[in-house]
Protein backbone atom coordinates (compact mmCIF):
# COMPACT_ATOMS: atom_id res chain seq x y z
CA UNK A 1 0.00 0.00 0.00
CA UNK A 2 1.35 3.42 -0.96
CA UNK A 3 1.95 6.11 1.64
CA UNK A 4 -0.84 8.15 0.07
CA UNK A 5 -3.33 5.33 0.43
CA UNK A 6 -2.35 4.60 4.03
CA UNK A 7 -2.96 8.22 4.83
CA UNK A 8 -6.30 8.43 3.01
CA UNK A 9 -7.51 5.19 4.58
CA UNK A 10 -6.66 6.60 8.01
CA UNK A 11 -8.64 9.71 7.12
CA UNK A 12 -11.64 7.60 6.18
CA UNK A 13 -11.33 5.42 9.26
CA UNK A 14 -11.37 8.58 11.35
CA UNK A 15 -14.75 9.38 9.79
CA UNK A 16 -13.61 12.35 7.76
CA UNK A 17 -14.79 12.83 4.19
CA UNK A 18 -11.98 13.98 1.93
CA UNK A 19 -12.19 17.32 0.19
CA UNK A 20 -9.93 17.56 -2.87
CA UNK A 21 -9.76 20.96 -4.54
CA UNK A 22 -7.96 21.29 -7.87
CA UNK A 23 -5.64 24.21 -8.64
CA UNK A 24 -3.93 24.84 -11.99
CA UNK A 25 -0.21 25.13 -11.33
CA UNK A 26 1.38 28.35 -12.52
CA UNK A 27 -1.93 30.09 -13.20
CA UNK A 28 -0.98 33.36 -11.52
CA UNK A 29 1.88 34.67 -9.43
CA UNK A 30 -0.02 33.75 -6.28
CA UNK A 31 -1.05 30.23 -7.27
CA UNK A 32 0.98 28.62 -4.47
CA UNK A 33 -0.79 30.93 -2.02
CA UNK A 34 -4.04 29.58 -3.46
CA UNK A 35 -2.91 26.03 -2.64
CA UNK A 36 -2.00 27.23 0.85
CA UNK A 37 -5.41 28.85 1.23
CA UNK A 38 -7.15 25.65 0.15
CA UNK A 39 -5.23 23.67 2.75
CA UNK A 40 -5.92 26.25 5.43
CA UNK A 41 -9.64 26.15 4.64
CA UNK A 42 -9.84 22.39 5.07
CA UNK A 43 -8.62 20.56 1.97
CA UNK A 44 -7.46 17.01 2.72
CA UNK A 45 -5.62 16.58 -0.56
CA UNK A 46 -4.81 19.19 -3.19
CA UNK A 47 -4.79 18.22 -6.83
CA UNK A 48 -2.27 20.28 -8.78
CA UNK A 49 -2.84 20.56 -12.52
CA UNK A 50 0.33 20.54 -14.60
CA UNK A 51 -1.01 22.38 -17.64
CA UNK A 52 -0.98 20.71 -21.04
CA UNK A 53 -1.70 22.25 -24.43
CA UNK A 54 -4.27 19.59 -25.35
CA UNK A 55 -6.16 18.68 -22.18
CA UNK A 56 -8.64 16.28 -23.72
CA UNK A 57 -10.51 15.57 -20.50
CA UNK A 58 -10.98 19.20 -19.53
CA UNK A 59 -13.74 21.60 -20.41
CA UNK A 60 -13.37 25.19 -21.48
CA UNK A 61 -12.71 26.68 -18.03
CA UNK A 62 -9.73 24.50 -17.21
CA UNK A 63 -8.52 24.74 -20.82
CA UNK A 64 -8.51 28.51 -20.50
CA UNK A 65 -6.64 28.31 -17.22
CA UNK A 66 -4.08 25.91 -18.71
CA UNK A 67 -3.55 28.25 -21.66
CA UNK A 68 -3.02 31.16 -19.30
CA UNK A 69 -0.50 29.23 -17.24
CA UNK A 70 1.38 28.09 -20.35
CA UNK A 71 1.39 31.62 -21.75
CA UNK A 72 2.99 32.76 -18.48
CA UNK A 73 5.74 30.23 -19.10
CA UNK A 74 4.66 27.60 -16.59
CA UNK A 75 6.25 24.18 -17.10
CA UNK A 76 6.41 21.05 -15.01
CA UNK A 77 9.79 22.27 -13.72
CA UNK A 78 8.71 25.76 -12.72
CA UNK A 79 5.57 24.44 -11.06
CA UNK A 80 7.37 21.76 -9.08
CA UNK A 81 10.07 24.27 -8.09
CA UNK A 82 7.44 26.61 -6.71
CA UNK A 83 5.58 23.75 -5.09
CA UNK A 84 8.60 22.47 -3.21
CA UNK A 85 8.64 25.72 -1.22
CA UNK A 86 5.13 24.93 0.06
CA UNK A 87 5.91 22.26 2.66
CA UNK A 88 2.29 21.14 2.66
CA UNK A 89 0.91 19.12 5.56
CA UNK A 90 -1.66 17.40 3.32
CA UNK A 91 -0.92 15.13 0.35
CA UNK A 92 -0.49 16.72 -3.07
CA UNK A 93 -1.35 14.85 -6.25
CA UNK A 94 -0.46 15.95 -9.76
CA UNK A 95 -2.95 15.79 -12.60
CA UNK A 96 -1.63 16.06 -16.13
CA UNK A 97 -1.51 14.31 -19.49
CA UNK A 98 0.95 11.64 -20.43
CA UNK A 99 3.05 13.57 -22.94
CA UNK A 100 4.26 15.87 -20.17
CA UNK A 101 5.81 12.92 -18.32
CA UNK A 102 6.83 11.12 -21.51
CA UNK A 103 8.74 14.14 -22.73
CA UNK A 104 10.43 14.65 -19.40
CA UNK A 105 11.41 11.01 -19.23
CA UNK A 106 9.27 8.80 -17.00
CA UNK A 107 11.84 8.09 -14.34
CA UNK A 108 12.94 11.68 -14.11
CA UNK A 109 9.31 12.88 -13.97
CA UNK A 110 8.46 10.51 -11.14
CA UNK A 111 11.57 11.46 -9.17
CA UNK A 112 10.89 15.17 -9.62
CA UNK A 113 7.27 14.81 -8.49
CA UNK A 114 8.37 13.01 -5.35
CA UNK A 115 11.11 15.55 -4.65
CA UNK A 116 8.53 18.35 -4.83
CA UNK A 117 6.34 16.60 -2.26
CA UNK A 118 3.81 15.11 -4.70
CA UNK A 119 2.61 11.66 -3.64
CA UNK A 120 0.16 10.73 -6.39
CA UNK A 121 -0.53 11.21 -10.09
CA UNK A 122 -3.68 11.31 -12.20
CA UNK A 123 -3.06 10.89 -15.93
CA UNK A 124 -6.39 10.51 -17.72
CA UNK A 125 -4.94 9.68 -21.13
CA UNK A 126 -2.79 6.85 -19.83
CA UNK A 127 -4.85 3.70 -20.22
CA UNK A 128 -4.77 0.68 -17.98
CA UNK A 129 -3.16 -1.35 -20.78
CA UNK A 130 -0.25 1.11 -21.14
CA UNK A 131 0.23 1.81 -17.45
CA UNK A 132 3.16 -0.49 -16.72
CA UNK A 133 6.24 1.65 -17.37
CA UNK A 134 4.85 4.69 -15.54
CA UNK A 135 3.57 2.69 -12.61
CA UNK A 136 6.92 1.02 -12.15
CA UNK A 137 8.97 4.22 -11.91
CA UNK A 138 6.22 5.97 -9.94
CA UNK A 139 6.17 3.13 -7.41
CA UNK A 140 9.93 3.34 -7.04
CA UNK A 141 9.64 7.07 -6.40
CA UNK A 142 6.76 6.68 -3.94
CA UNK A 143 4.17 8.31 -6.20
CA UNK A 144 0.77 6.57 -6.23
CA UNK A 145 -0.95 5.99 -9.57
CA UNK A 146 -4.57 7.07 -9.24
CA UNK A 147 -6.92 5.64 -11.86
CA UNK A 148 -10.30 6.82 -13.06
CA UNK A 149 -13.44 4.71 -13.42
CA UNK A 150 -16.05 5.96 -15.87
CA UNK A 151 -19.81 5.33 -15.87
CA UNK A 152 -19.21 3.37 -19.09
CA UNK A 153 -16.57 1.07 -17.62
CA UNK A 154 -17.90 -2.51 -17.79
CA UNK A 155 -17.74 -4.55 -14.56
CA UNK A 156 -14.63 -6.54 -15.51
CA UNK A 157 -12.80 -3.31 -16.26
CA UNK A 158 -14.05 -1.68 -13.06
CA UNK A 159 -12.57 -4.67 -11.23
CA UNK A 160 -9.17 -4.21 -12.87
CA UNK A 161 -9.14 -0.43 -12.42
CA UNK A 162 -10.25 -0.68 -8.80
CA UNK A 163 -7.62 -3.30 -8.12
CA UNK A 164 -4.84 -1.28 -9.73
CA UNK A 165 -5.65 2.22 -8.48
CA UNK A 166 -3.46 3.45 -5.65
CA UNK A 167 -4.27 6.15 -3.10
CA UNK A 168 -7.87 6.51 -4.09
CA UNK A 169 -10.11 5.60 -7.01
CA UNK A 170 -11.31 8.56 -9.04
CA UNK A 171 -14.98 7.92 -9.84
CA UNK A 172 -16.03 10.04 -12.82
CA UNK A 173 -19.62 11.09 -12.31
CA UNK A 174 -20.40 11.37 -15.99
CA UNK A 175 -19.23 10.81 -19.54
CA UNK A 176 -18.11 14.39 -20.11
CA UNK A 177 -15.21 16.76 -19.93
CA UNK A 178 -14.75 18.68 -16.71
CA UNK A 179 -17.07 21.52 -15.87
CA UNK A 180 -19.92 21.09 -18.33
CA UNK A 181 -22.64 19.81 -16.06
CA UNK A 182 -23.29 19.99 -12.39
CA UNK A 183 -25.18 17.21 -10.76
CA UNK A 184 -24.35 13.86 -9.28
CA UNK A 185 -24.74 12.10 -12.62
CA UNK A 186 -24.11 8.39 -12.35
CA UNK A 187 -21.65 8.74 -9.52
CA UNK A 188 -23.59 6.72 -6.92
CA UNK A 189 -23.71 3.74 -9.26
CA UNK A 190 -20.01 4.13 -10.19
CA UNK A 191 -18.96 4.32 -6.56
CA UNK A 192 -21.03 1.29 -5.63
CA UNK A 193 -19.49 -0.61 -8.54
CA UNK A 194 -15.96 0.24 -7.43
CA UNK A 195 -16.65 -0.76 -3.84
CA UNK A 196 -17.47 -4.29 -4.93
CA UNK A 197 -13.82 -4.76 -5.82
CA UNK A 198 -11.68 -2.70 -3.47
CA UNK A 199 -11.33 -1.12 -0.06
CA UNK A 200 -9.34 1.77 -1.51
CA UNK A 201 -11.18 5.04 -0.84
CA UNK A 202 -13.40 6.26 -3.68
CA UNK A 203 -13.70 9.96 -4.49
CA UNK A 204 -16.16 11.51 -6.92
CA UNK A 205 -15.18 14.17 -9.44
CA UNK A 206 -16.47 15.83 -12.61
CA UNK A 207 -19.63 17.82 -12.07
CA UNK A 208 -19.24 18.90 -8.44
CA UNK A 209 -19.59 22.64 -8.42
CA UNK A 210 -21.36 23.58 -5.18
CA UNK A 211 -21.13 22.77 -1.47
CA UNK A 212 -24.49 20.97 -1.73
CA UNK A 213 -23.24 18.74 -4.54
CA UNK A 214 -20.05 17.99 -2.64
CA UNK A 215 -22.11 17.01 0.39
CA UNK A 216 -24.40 14.83 -1.72
CA UNK A 217 -21.41 13.03 -3.26
CA UNK A 218 -19.91 12.48 0.18
CA UNK A 219 -23.10 10.79 1.36
CA UNK A 220 -22.02 7.70 -0.61
CA UNK A 221 -18.36 8.38 -1.56
CA UNK A 222 -15.29 8.88 0.62
CA UNK A 223 -14.49 12.25 -0.86
CA UNK A 224 -15.25 14.89 -3.45
CA UNK A 225 -12.99 16.51 -6.03
CA UNK A 226 -13.80 20.08 -7.04
CA UNK A 227 -11.98 21.50 -10.04
CA UNK A 228 -13.75 23.76 -12.49
CA UNK A 229 -15.83 25.65 -9.94
CA UNK A 230 -12.67 26.62 -8.08
CA UNK A 231 -10.63 27.37 -11.20
CA UNK A 232 -13.41 29.66 -12.46
CA UNK A 233 -13.01 31.70 -9.28
CA UNK A 234 -9.29 31.93 -9.94
CA UNK A 235 -9.88 33.05 -13.53
CA UNK A 236 -12.25 35.67 -12.14
CA UNK A 237 -9.38 37.01 -10.06
CA UNK A 238 -10.66 35.98 -6.64
CA UNK A 239 -7.19 34.79 -5.64
CA UNK A 240 -6.28 33.09 -2.36
CA UNK A 241 -9.09 34.82 -0.46
CA UNK A 242 -11.66 33.48 -2.90
CA UNK A 243 -10.16 30.00 -2.59
CA UNK A 244 -10.24 30.20 1.18
CA UNK A 245 -13.88 31.27 1.17
CA UNK A 246 -15.09 28.66 -1.32
CA UNK A 247 -13.13 25.74 0.14
CA UNK A 248 -14.39 26.64 3.62
CA UNK A 249 -17.97 26.50 2.28
CA UNK A 250 -17.32 23.09 0.74
CA UNK A 251 -15.75 21.88 3.97
CA UNK A 252 -18.67 23.06 6.08
CA UNK A 253 -21.14 21.35 3.76
CA UNK A 254 -19.51 17.93 3.75
CA UNK A 255 -18.69 17.80 7.47
Amino acid at each position, binding site marked *: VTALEARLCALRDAGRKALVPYVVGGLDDDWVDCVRAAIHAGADVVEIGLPFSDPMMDGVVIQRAADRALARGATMSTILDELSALDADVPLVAMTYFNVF*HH*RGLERAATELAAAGVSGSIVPDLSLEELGPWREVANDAGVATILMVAPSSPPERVARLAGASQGFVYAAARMAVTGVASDAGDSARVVAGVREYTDTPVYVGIGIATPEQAAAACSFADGAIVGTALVQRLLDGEGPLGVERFVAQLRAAIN
Partner: protein
Amino acid sequence: MGLGSPGVLHGMRSMLIQSDVGQIEEAHSISAGLDYPGIGPEHAHLASLGRATYVSASDDEVIDALQILSRLEGIIPALETAHAVAWVLRSAGREIPLGSSVLINLSGRGDKDVAQVREILGRRS
Protein backbone atom coordinates in the same frame (compact mmCIF):
# COMPACT_ATOMS: atom_id res chain seq x y z
CA MET B 1 6.97 14.53 -40.22
CA GLY B 2 9.73 17.04 -40.88
CA LEU B 3 9.15 19.02 -37.69
CA GLY B 4 8.12 16.26 -35.31
CA SER B 5 9.66 14.46 -32.39
CA PRO B 6 8.37 11.41 -30.52
CA GLY B 7 5.47 12.03 -28.17
CA VAL B 8 2.16 10.63 -26.93
CA LEU B 9 -1.17 12.20 -27.85
CA HIS B 10 -4.69 10.87 -28.32
CA GLY B 11 -3.65 7.39 -27.30
CA MET B 12 -0.75 6.93 -29.68
CA ARG B 13 2.99 7.34 -29.59
CA SER B 14 4.16 8.90 -32.81
CA MET B 15 5.88 11.95 -34.25
CA LEU B 16 4.31 15.16 -32.90
CA ILE B 17 4.91 18.85 -33.43
CA GLN B 18 5.69 19.90 -29.88
CA SER B 19 7.70 22.31 -27.77
CA ASP B 20 10.85 21.46 -25.85
CA VAL B 21 8.72 20.60 -22.79
CA GLY B 22 6.18 18.45 -24.63
CA GLN B 23 3.42 21.02 -25.23
CA ILE B 24 1.70 20.37 -28.53
CA GLU B 25 2.09 23.16 -31.11
CA GLU B 26 -0.65 24.44 -33.41
CA ALA B 27 -0.68 22.72 -36.78
CA HIS B 28 -1.78 24.39 -39.99
CA SER B 29 -3.23 22.93 -43.16
CA ILE B 30 -5.72 24.05 -45.77
CA SER B 31 -7.29 20.61 -45.48
CA ALA B 32 -9.08 19.73 -42.27
CA GLY B 33 -7.92 16.13 -42.49
CA LEU B 34 -4.28 17.14 -42.38
CA ASP B 35 -4.65 19.91 -39.81
CA TYR B 36 -3.19 17.81 -37.02
CA PRO B 37 0.04 18.11 -35.04
CA GLY B 38 1.00 14.46 -35.49
CA ILE B 39 1.03 11.61 -37.94
CA GLY B 40 -0.31 8.08 -37.72
CA PRO B 41 2.12 5.76 -35.98
CA GLU B 42 2.24 3.48 -39.05
CA HIS B 43 3.67 6.36 -41.08
CA ALA B 44 6.23 7.21 -38.40
CA HIS B 45 7.24 3.57 -38.45
CA LEU B 46 7.53 3.35 -42.24
CA ALA B 47 9.56 6.57 -42.27
CA SER B 48 11.93 5.30 -39.59
CA LEU B 49 12.44 2.09 -41.58
CA GLY B 50 13.16 4.12 -44.70
CA ARG B 51 10.37 2.31 -46.53
CA ALA B 52 8.47 5.48 -47.36
CA THR B 53 9.47 9.06 -48.02
CA TYR B 54 7.24 11.88 -46.80
CA VAL B 55 6.96 15.20 -48.58
CA SER B 56 4.83 18.32 -48.26
CA ALA B 57 2.94 20.72 -50.49
CA SER B 58 1.92 24.33 -49.93
CA ASP B 59 -1.71 25.47 -49.76
CA ASP B 60 -1.36 27.27 -53.10
CA GLU B 61 0.10 24.22 -54.82
CA VAL B 62 -2.77 22.15 -53.47
CA ILE B 63 -5.45 24.49 -54.80
CA ASP B 64 -3.75 24.51 -58.21
CA ALA B 65 -3.48 20.72 -58.24
CA LEU B 66 -7.14 20.29 -57.35
CA GLN B 67 -8.16 22.48 -60.29
CA ILE B 68 -5.77 20.81 -62.74
CA LEU B 69 -6.95 17.29 -61.96
CA SER B 70 -10.58 18.42 -62.06
CA ARG B 71 -10.13 20.04 -65.49
CA LEU B 72 -7.98 17.33 -67.08
CA GLU B 73 -9.68 14.23 -65.72
CA GLY B 74 -13.02 15.37 -64.37
CA ILE B 75 -12.02 13.99 -61.00
CA ILE B 76 -12.30 16.34 -58.05
CA PRO B 77 -9.76 15.21 -55.46
CA ALA B 78 -10.14 15.97 -51.78
CA LEU B 79 -7.86 18.72 -50.51
CA GLU B 80 -5.93 16.06 -48.59
CA THR B 81 -5.51 13.98 -51.75
CA ALA B 82 -4.62 17.04 -53.82
CA HIS B 83 -1.40 17.26 -51.80
CA ALA B 84 -0.20 14.12 -53.56
CA VAL B 85 -1.20 15.49 -56.96
CA ALA B 86 0.56 18.76 -56.15
CA TRP B 87 3.81 17.02 -55.31
CA VAL B 88 3.72 14.99 -58.52
CA LEU B 89 3.11 18.15 -60.57
CA ARG B 90 6.00 19.89 -58.84
CA SER B 91 8.32 16.91 -59.21
CA ALA B 92 7.61 16.00 -62.84
CA GLY B 93 10.85 16.43 -64.74
CA ARG B 94 12.79 16.70 -61.49
CA GLU B 95 12.57 13.88 -58.91
CA ILE B 96 10.22 12.09 -61.35
CA PRO B 97 11.83 11.69 -64.80
CA LEU B 98 9.68 12.80 -67.72
CA GLY B 99 7.92 9.89 -69.37
CA SER B 100 7.50 7.97 -66.10
CA SER B 101 4.31 6.18 -65.23
CA VAL B 102 3.15 7.47 -61.85
CA LEU B 103 0.57 5.85 -59.61
CA ILE B 104 -1.26 8.30 -57.36
CA ASN B 105 -3.63 7.03 -54.71
CA LEU B 106 -6.66 9.33 -54.89
CA SER B 107 -7.61 8.66 -51.29
CA GLY B 108 -10.60 10.96 -51.06
CA ARG B 109 -13.08 12.91 -53.14
CA GLY B 110 -13.35 16.66 -53.12
CA ASP B 111 -17.12 17.10 -53.20
CA LYS B 112 -16.85 17.89 -49.53
CA ASP B 113 -14.36 20.68 -50.25
CA VAL B 114 -15.98 22.56 -53.13
CA ALA B 115 -17.53 25.26 -50.96
CA GLN B 116 -14.20 25.93 -49.28
CA VAL B 117 -12.33 25.92 -52.61
CA ARG B 118 -14.83 28.34 -54.13
CA GLU B 119 -14.30 30.69 -51.21
CA ILE B 120 -10.50 30.46 -51.55
CA LEU B 121 -10.62 31.05 -55.32
CA GLY B 122 -12.96 34.00 -54.75
CA ARG B 123 -10.38 35.53 -52.43
CA ARG B 124 -7.64 34.94 -54.99
CA SER B 125 -9.35 36.71 -57.89
